[in-house]
């Protein structure tokens, strides 16, 4: 999809958290799946499953599912421009009081993150441009790292009571 030769940084350097850590006692999951719309449901189901051992309200579970759905949809629609043969990487870490989810794509990247995060940035009349707004309202922290032509990593953090 993207022209790897043009990447000035390896995509892993864009990531806010690095999961491999031998001394980390927290449970971690890493999943790579094809950039296909049918995998969005799988991603949000996995996110809600990893916190199922914690005492979560249905509203909180749904907030996590919506945020993951938006981040993965963005990766497929915007990052990969609906190319079904690319890979989306999802990592999750469950700490004592937080769930940290990263969604990474090696797609086109975002030129202007601030602009992309504004509601109704989308030009298509059938798209609401509310993806980032939902992530912000339903998660406690949203971080976006992106390199044009290299990819985007969205890190979603939810505090667990």
């Amino acid at each position, binding site marked *: 999809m993207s022209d790897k030769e043009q990447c000035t940084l390896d995509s892993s350097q864009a990531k806010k958290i690095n999961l491999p850590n031998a001394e980390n006692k927290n449970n971690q999951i890493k999943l790579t799946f094809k950039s296909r*719309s049918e995998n*969005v449901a799988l991603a949000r189901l996995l996110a*809600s499953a990893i916190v*199922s051992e914690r005492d979560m309200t249905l509203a909180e*579970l749904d907030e996590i599912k919506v945020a993951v759905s938006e981040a993965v949809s963005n990766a497929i629609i915007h990052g990969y421009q609906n190319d079904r043969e690319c890979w989306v990487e999802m990592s999750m870490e469950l700490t004592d009081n937080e769930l940290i989810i990263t969604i990474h794509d090696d797609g086109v990247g975002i030129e202007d993150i601030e602009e992309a995060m504004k509601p109704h940035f989308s030009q298509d009349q*059938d798209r609401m*441009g*509310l993806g980032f707004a939902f992530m912000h309202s339903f998660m406690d922290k949203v971080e976006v790292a992106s390199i044009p032509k290299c990819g985007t990593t969205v890190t979603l953090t939810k505090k667990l009571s």
Partner: protein
Amino acid sequence: MEIISKLKKYQNKEWLYLQPKGELDMACADEFKETIIEGLHKSGSRMLWLDFSQITFIDSSGLGVILGRYRELEPMGGKIIITHPHEQVYRLLTASGLHRIIDIDKPVSVKYTKEGM
């Protein structure tokens, strides 16, 4: 996506009544959109009644389809109503601001179990 489609009389008007079932995300947004467009075209109606009693999840892809239809129907004097949304779905409908332009029923409280997550 399973979608029940009927024509129903309500308030002296003929409505295209649709009851989609399942999770309304980007995987079925196009199918949902095509079903609405085709149903409106075949019936000639500009009144769209969405029964959301069987919708268990919605995100901005699903909401976008509704907004897109509103933008098409509204200038033609058409209308959209949404009935029986689950609480979680209702929350998204209000968070998106759609409740300000579309008539939406009060949410239906649904008891979930952890297995039904």
